[in-house]
């Protein structure tokens, strides 16, 4: 599979995790989208740093072509899936009573 296909698959899987597996439904929550709006500019900056300096180099046959701040557009999907997956599990474990409050470790 190409990077494009894998990026779409990752977003789909993270959405399925959030909506149907652990059912945290972050995708329906204002707190999630606000957090994402804060994270996104930092992600774009970090992606720009890594790609414009050729620290990470992409095979152009594996990407669609459009770039945002020098990074392949697929990177946005990659980052989104990573963030949604982790935040979804974070809320899931909180709901299960694992280290709910910041002043307690368990």
């Amino acid at each position, binding site marked *: 599979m190409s*990077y494009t296909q*894998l990026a779409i698959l990752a977003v789909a899987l993270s959405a399925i995790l959030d909506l149907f597996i652990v059912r945290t439904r972050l995708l329906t929550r204002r707190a999630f989208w606000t957090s994402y709006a804060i994270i996104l500019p*930092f992600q774009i900056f970090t992606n720009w*740093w890594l790609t414009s300096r050729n620290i990470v180099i992409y095979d152009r046959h594996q990407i669609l072509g459009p770039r945002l701040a020098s990074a392949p557009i697929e990177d946005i999907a990659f980052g989104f899936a990573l*963030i949604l997956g*982790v935040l979804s599990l974070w809320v*899931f474990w*909180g709901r299960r009573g*694992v280290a709910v409050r*910041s002043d307690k470790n368990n």
Partner: protein
Amino acid sequence: MRHWGYLAALIFVVIASFWLEIFLKVGVLRRMKRLIYSIAPIALLFIGWDSYAVWRHHWRFDSTQILKIYGAFNIPLEEYLFFIIVPIAAIMTLEAVRKRRPHWIIGDENVGGQK
């Protein structure tokens, strides 16, 4: 200095987010068990993706801009750190939003009580 190119990006992410732990007291690092449980499964999947992508030449890393310390699957140390640091930064952001907007529902409220 050139070898620090990738690590510089990670240091930036740490600086940009970890102040929330100190000044906004989001208390994410103090919830280590929950942090590990949340990050480990996702990080493992992404490391799997990463190793597949490197193997299939979807992307590669400039060896002059990394520390050239490699872990399993020939993935650079920085890449492993990325999958730990970025998730921590994301969780700190969510917890910071919760601190500033306590009435916004996140979904893990009322633990031990009624749903």
